């Protein structure tokens, strides 16, 4: 497992000082893949590089397995080569002057691993990533996807305690990216290795992770399993980052168990939410796909009447911008078969269980 606590790091240039990490803490349980997700400049890559030892934090503590590899208290800093990590870089960093075999064998050399053992291990990881027959190929002759696999093989060959992946798919084209993210997830599950994954793509994060930590401005905003963080986020920022979102502004009236009662222009709503303080300004949040649009008002469920203000055809779905009678606008995605028309009057139905309460 990996434990990071109160990690701080700032970069100083002549003009300004940038606080890259503002005291972040998290831990990665053994065998899990945790993703650091966030917009560019949020400090996710810096965090990963601190774990690898490529960046020296200003303060805090980093533990990999049993070993403390960095601690500002005891003034300990292990350089990267002492840390039991494997890393896949954004550019793959496949050495162009070596063959595939030499690239993958590199971490084993100079560590007292015998020659025959090296050959064995390299072939084992190469077959693991499906490149066994390319061992003798000069690395500049590899395609993007193959380079990616070599990079993964090289990161795994010396059996590190943690695998670090820094935007490993951002240099691939969209199709290959979707394929490779499944492959990486598969490999990680199969090998049971602990991994930290960095990306700015929320879809990719949801596809590969056990846990996602959402970072903004050098801080972890919140974290959780993909399902939960997508559907029931705590913060408005998170809800927005993960995809299209509807927010209805309101004020918290009461906390009843794990439900929160919020007063909104649409009326008083009760939705899922925890640890909210009464009186606080908040938003009722739901995803466009959780909203149902119908032409006739349903009899047994509450619905909100409104008209279609804009229709955007997206292929799989059609996104409708609805203007409700009291001036609130909301987005809803509907099936293309529904064929919404501009200015048509419709009714919006939202399941309260799909809503949650988020704060700024």
């Amino acid at each position, binding site marked *: 497992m990996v434990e990071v606590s109160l990690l701080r790091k700032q970069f100083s240039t002549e003009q300004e000082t940038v606080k890259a990490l503002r005291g972040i803490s998290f831990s990665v349980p053994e065998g899990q893949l945790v993703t650091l997700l966030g917009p560019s400049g949020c400090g996710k890559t810096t965090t990963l590089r601190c774990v690898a*030892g490529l960046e020296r934090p200003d303060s805090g503590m980093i533990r990999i397995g049993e070993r403390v590899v960095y601690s500002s208290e005891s003034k300990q800093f292990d350089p990267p080569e002492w840390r039991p990590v494997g890393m896949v870089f954004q550019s793959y960093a496949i050495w162009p*002057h070596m063959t595939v075999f030499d690239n993958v064998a590199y971490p084993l050399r100079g560590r007292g691993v015998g020659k025959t053992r090296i050959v064995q291990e390299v072939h084992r990881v190469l077959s*693991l990533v499906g490149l066994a027959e390319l061992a003798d190929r000069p690395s*500049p002759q590899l395609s993007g996807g193959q380079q990616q696999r070599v990079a993964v093989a090289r990161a795994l060959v010396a059996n590190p305690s943690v695998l670090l992946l820094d935007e490993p798919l951002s240099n691939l084209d969209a199709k290959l990216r979707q394929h490779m993210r499944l492959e990486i997830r598969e490999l990680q599950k199969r090998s049971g290795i602990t991994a930290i994954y960095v990306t700015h793509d929320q879809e990719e994060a949801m596809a590969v992770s056990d846990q996602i930590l959402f970072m903004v401005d050098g801080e972890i905003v919140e974290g959780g399993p993909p399902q939960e963080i997508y559907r029931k986020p705590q913060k408005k920022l998170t809800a927005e980052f993960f995809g299209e979102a509807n927010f209805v502004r309101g004020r918290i009236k009461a906390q009843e168990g794990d439900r929160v009662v919020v007063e909104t222009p649409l009326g008083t709503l009760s939705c899922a939410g925890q640890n909210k303080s009464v009186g606080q300004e908040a938003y009722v949040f739901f995803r466009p796909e959780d909203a149902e649009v119908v032409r006739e008002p349903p009899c047994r469920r509450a619905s909100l009447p409104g008209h279609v203000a804009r229709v955007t055809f997206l292929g799989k779905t059609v996104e409708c911008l609805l203007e409700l009678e009291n001036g609130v606008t909301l987005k809803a995605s509907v099936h293309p078969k529904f064929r919404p028309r501009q200015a048509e009057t419709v009714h919006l139905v939202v399941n309260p269980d799909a809503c949650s309460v988020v704060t700024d």
Partner: protein
Amino acid sequence: MVGREAVLALRDIAWRAPFKRVNWGPVVLALTSAVVLYLVLVPLVVALVATFREHGYLPFEPGPLTFRNYAYVFLDATTWTLMVNTGLFAAGSLVLGMAFAILFGWLVERSDMPLRNLTFALVIAPMIIPGMMVAIAWIFLLDPRIGLINLMLRWIPGWETDRGPLDIYTLGGMIFVEGFRMVPTMFLMISAAFRNMDPSLEEASRVAGKSGLATVSRITLPLMRPAMLAALLYFFIRAIEVFEVPGVLGLNAGIHVFSTRIYWSVHPAAGGLPDYGLASTFSLILVAVSAFSVWLYYRLTRKTYVTVTGKGFRPQRVRLGRMKYLAGLLFLAYFAVTLVLPFFVLLWTSLHKFYLPPSWEGLRSMTLASYGELLKDPGVILAAFNTILLALLTGTMTMLIALFVGWFVVRSRYRLTRALDLFAFLPHALPTVVIALAVMLLYLSFPNPIYGTIVAISIALTTSYIAYGSRVMIAGFHQIHPELEEASRVSGANFFRTFWRVLLPLSAPAFINGWIWVAVHAGRELTAALMLFSPSSVVVSTKVWALWEQGRVSVASALGVVLMMMLILISWAGRSAMTRMRAF
């Protein structure tokens, strides 16, 4: 499908072998800085101390301190003459060189002139003739009594004199030779700037309705101003410190510039004693002037860091029309004046027992006697051996230091790095003649086996070339993606292994490029060698100088021709090593 056990097979790998417990990065940084500091700063301090010593005293000998050197230098009228001479010489050759470099750079990079690749090669080809040989060749061509061109000019009715009409032993003569000598390197700098300029800036001007020539004057040249200013400053420093041309042409005529004056103080004419104090004080002025220019240059090149846009773009070329024949003629004239004529006259002289103006009769008296004399002279064999040793040693030492300097400057974020960057740049401000003087004083000051050997010359040259070498390596490391070496560290390789297995192979093209430049320059270098050589450490350039001083012009020419062949051989060897490296 391979199971989980396969990946977990290697539980026994040692993640931290006990002997790897040192983090070598900072250690190597400290060592590199110490070496650079020793090479650059220590000799300067020694030279500074020398300015306060009486005539006849070494810097650290016990004895009185004095301000007499300063009094002499700053109160004597000849210092003023020296300044005027140096200033005129530098300004004149800069104007001449720059005019041709800009014109050629523009023609090759921005006009539709034919045979541009060939022209490019023709412009830089004259670099192969060492400065001293160029000066000697021009004596054969423009000596007021026997110069070939003068002899031909005298056929013109009205000029039938027995002297002149042209005289190479003048400030104008020196400017003429030095100015043309600057063109190749200046041209390289200027044409690179032309090439790196984003052509869409010019295209935007064309689209806005301006003609090709209006675009050149309103867009191209103003954009080039920083690059041209940088080239100008760089060559100003070179012009005030250059020794070869003023040494060959000016010393006899009594036209002194700073560099020859310093040399003259250490090697006075008739049996005088060397005056280190005076030489050091003159050096101080020279260093002050060039340090100021270097500071300007550093600021200029830092601020206007040229961003190279994508390769392979096609800039709009200005149509020359009939002017292209004129341009072609200009290149031919330049090539004849800077390479064909000097080389021919050197070769001709080397093939005769005495200097003899070229003629049809002269063809019959051609002989290889001078080359035979070279082979018989044991001093020449030693000099050739020493020259090769000097080239190899200096190239390797300089580029090894530059390798580490370059890496630290580009990659590391230690505070020491910026100081290292500055100190590695500082030798730009140190004229070779000053470095040589300082090295001489340093190794005279305490007993050591280095003084008077090739190593002493090599140390002086290494100091001088560190600045160039580290720029090359810095540019080289900028081209290597930092993740390539980070991947090595994360793979468990320490500093040295990363350097050896990843950085060295990847930066080899830059390293070899720099190595060739340094080795070739060290092999032809005259100034430091002349200041520092002893009978056992003669090199070819000092041997040519000595032969020339003795009046054995044919043998000197022959050795000059041999030297050029040796230099071509060294750079050919380096280039072929380079192509082999490109194989991967």
